[in-house]
């Protein structure tokens, strides 16, 4: 009997483990080469010569279908150096995708090659004309590109009134007041005038927050002047009004914001906002239902970790990782600290369950982009986290960490995350100083791939080649009464006794924007018994008995639930 068991185990080993060491669960491969994405990011001086943190933050990328051909395109943000005049940085780039993994640089014809010192990007159809527009965050003035619908864009920043900014990082398009158009939250960081910040190695820097384990490094944000985040209300005529003060999101002491994501954490039907701040308390902005907000970061226990300590919040995402119907949170943090998973207890409060959830292994990584996605279609959301240090100097010391790091992939096992990075294919073994993570099914094969941006090195496109993945559904939403993108829409997919929730979120993790389509894994189920789509307008559409493994286009009001009129 024992011999038989050993023989069986050996067979399983042969079946389950590939020559490259990846397990049968999830597998990611590097698909950058041959993809046509040739992008050399610049963010200040080369690694060993960086003097200020402006040079260590990197930049993001966004997936969008700018030409409406059904294939996702890629927009990548580029930076500059301190010795160049403003507006003379490296241009951002737009790559047109063919849906098969090949991309063509169309920056010049599209007219989106902004040359500011770029950091982040948000995507949203702010003018409800059925094509995605782009908002680029910069050190200095931000840029809003309106999609003309013919493959070109127009810089409408001045007329829209969303340009002025000191140093913006992430941004989110979200309809805060339920009036059917997308408003804009802009996360701002700190003063960027380097004449006011000590340079690494300056004598005075020694007395500032400019050390790391005794190593002289560039100064962190603490002690520098933070900048106020901005909230712009869409007037519906192509212009925006700055409602930072009147909406309640202005803080007496602004915080160093790096990440923003929207999600309805209290299931009351309006979008709330979570802002990951660097070195200070994070903000959970509860929507009061009228487009004004209350910061419940401290009261909800999402402002600090379980130790009551502020962390260096970078990226963030909402997702229901334990399948209880409430959106939980992940926030990525600095090295020698844990990334934080906050479990949502019925919208009343959140509890830092990082260790309980299995994130203790991330302690030595410095983390940025993060996303809850069902990479293996087993019905629960897994977690991918992009890692990379800010200080090249750490490589000269034995601190258990390094400048270039591999990323973390966690498989969700009944609400606990198991680190499967080492056995999930060669793509997870690439070490860079990663920053942004933009998730998308760029090759239209039904699973979620990921584009990872890096500091000073080309981005990495990881294709999801997970074998034996379960069934799935994708939903492309088009709002009619609600905002055209359907941001804020809650989708509930029921198979048997299990209901999974997904939400069309605004914002994206660390300076980036992901696939606008809703994706849900369904395991072995061959049909979804019921799909309920709750639009921000209040309309509810319902589909029943839906075959799996397809992309469904849903127009608001086309399949109304009983009690709702058809559009």
């Amino acid at each position, binding site marked *: 009997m024992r011999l038989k068991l050993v023989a069986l185990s050996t067979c399983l080993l042969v079946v389950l483990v590939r020559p490259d060491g990846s397990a049968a669960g999830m597998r990611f491969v590097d698909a950058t080469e041959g993809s046509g994405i040739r992008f050399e990011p610049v963010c200040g001086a080369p690694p060993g010569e960086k003097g200020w943190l402006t040079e260590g933050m990197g930049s993001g990328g966004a997936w969008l279908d700018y030409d409406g051909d059904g294939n996702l395109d890629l927009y990548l943000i580029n930076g500059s150096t301190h010795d160049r005049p403003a507006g003379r940085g490296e241009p951002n780039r737009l790559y047109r995708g063919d849906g098969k993994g090949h991309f063509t640089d169309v920056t010049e014809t599209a007219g989106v090659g902004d040359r500011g010192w770029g950091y982040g990007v948000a995507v949203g159809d702010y003018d409800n004309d059925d094509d995605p527009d782009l908002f680029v965050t910069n050190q200095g003035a931000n840029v809003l590109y309106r999609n003309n619908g013919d493959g070109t864009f127009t810089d409408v920043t001045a007329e829209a009134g969303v340009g002025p900014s000191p140093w913006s990082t992430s941004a989110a398009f979200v309809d805060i007041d339920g009036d059917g158009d997308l408003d804009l939250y802009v996360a701002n960081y700190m003063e960027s005038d380097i004449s006011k910040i000590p340079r690494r190695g300056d004598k005075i820097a020694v007395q500032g*927050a400019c050390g*790391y384990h*005794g190593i002289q490094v560039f100064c962190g944000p*603490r002690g520098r002047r933070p900048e106020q985040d901005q909230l712009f209300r869409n007037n519906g005529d192509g212009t925006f009004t700055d409602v930072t003060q009147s909406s309640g999101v202005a803080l007496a002491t602004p915080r160093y914001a790096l990440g923003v994501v929207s999600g309805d954490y209290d299931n009351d039907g309006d979008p709330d906002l979570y802002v990951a701040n660097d070195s200070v308390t994070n903000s959970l902005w509860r929507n009061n239902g009228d487009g004004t907000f209350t910061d419940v970061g401290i009261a909800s*226990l999402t402002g600090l970790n379980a130790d009551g300590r*502020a962390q260096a919040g970078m990226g963030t995402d909402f997702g229901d990782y334990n399948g209880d119907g409430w959106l939980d949170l992940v926030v990525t943090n600095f090295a020698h*600290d844990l990334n934080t998973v906050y479990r949502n*207890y019925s919208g009343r409060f959140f509890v830092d369950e990082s260790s309980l959830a299995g994130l203790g292994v991330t302690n030595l990584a410095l983390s940025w982009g993060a996303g809850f996605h069902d990479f293996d279609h087993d019905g629960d959301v897994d977690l991918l986290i992009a890692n990379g240090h800010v200080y090249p100097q750490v490589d000269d010391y034995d*601190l258990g960490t390094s400048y270039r790091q591999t990323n973390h992939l966690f498989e969700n096992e009944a609400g606990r995350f198991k680190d499967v990075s080492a056995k999930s294919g060669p793509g997870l073994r690439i070490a860079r100083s990663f920053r942004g993570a933009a998730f998308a099914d760029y090759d239209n094969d039904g699973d979620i791939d990921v584009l990872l941006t890096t500091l000073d090195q080309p981005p990495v496109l990881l294709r999801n080649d997970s074998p034996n993945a379960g069934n799935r559904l994708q939903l492309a939403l088009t709002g009619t009464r609600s905002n055209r993108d359907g941001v804020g829409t809650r989708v509930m997919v029921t198979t048997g006794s299990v209901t999974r929730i997904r939400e069309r979120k605004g914002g994206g993790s660390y300076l980036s924007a992901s696939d606008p389509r809703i994706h849900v894994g369904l395991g072995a189920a061959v049909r979804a018994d019921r799909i309920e789509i709750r639009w921000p307008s209040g309309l509810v559409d319902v589909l029943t008995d839906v075959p799996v493994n397809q992309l469904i286009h849903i127009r608001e009001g086309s399949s109304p639930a009983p009690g709702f009129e058809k559009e």
Partner: protein
Amino acid sequence: MGIGLAIGFGLTVFGCAGANDPEKPENDGKPATRASAPGSGAQPTPAPPAAFVQTVAELERRTEEVEKKIDPLRREVESDPSDARKQHALGRALYEANFMEQGIVHLERAVELNPSVRTLLDLAAAYGGAARLDDAERTCKRLLRSSPDFSPALYNLGTLARRRGKFDEAVGYLNLALEKDPKFLLARLRLGDSLDDLGRRQEAYRTYELALGLEPNTPQEASGYVEALYRLASLDLKMGAYERAGQFLTELIQMAPDHNKAYYAYGQVLLHMGYPEEAQKAFDKHVRILATKEPKGPVAMGD
């Protein structure tokens, strides 16, 4: 406010709002709605920790002050470079003012002149502070060659190994430190931490239990005792032994009523035991204590 709130299984939330307590949140017991969501109504939201500001001018002033303090020590050393005591004093002052490499130069000179236990320990600490972990390790081993039973050196080697993520090695050194000094409470805690890092949870648990067997005689030891209680409760929480976790936390809160983390952990215990309303009170207490404390510095850039 009374002693608190008995909620079954013999657990008590000390200092939490009771049924008729004026501090009882308005939304107590109600389902989550907009009105009862965190931060709504009369539920207090303490102000977040204030930011501190360091302008370039302020840093220049602070640098000048530091230089003023160090200058006399420099002159002393210049007047007699062969005086180990003066080299030691200057080295420490520079190190404490964050001029670590300069401080190390003078501490090394002090050790050359007089390799006493004190100078070697300070040099090892300075190396550790400057992330020169190899040098710190070498210095601790040098100390051990002259004083083989010196448990602080073994403890330091253990913590250095922990810093490098070499937890097996840390366990070895910390066990040695405890062989030399079984009452070394801090070493006992670090040993438990290292075992926990290695996933040897039961051994970690036994180690913390042993720490509880040490009678705390000094405030520092009492603090170590409290931390042992906290770690035991945390492990119990991870292992699903919620009742026992609650008992440890109850004892902890009696000893250290302002231990906000204990209230947080207690809230988690109560949630798992099915008492969300009581958990909310424990979390509220955690928040209220936090608001009275100096904010802890983050693990972040430049910190």
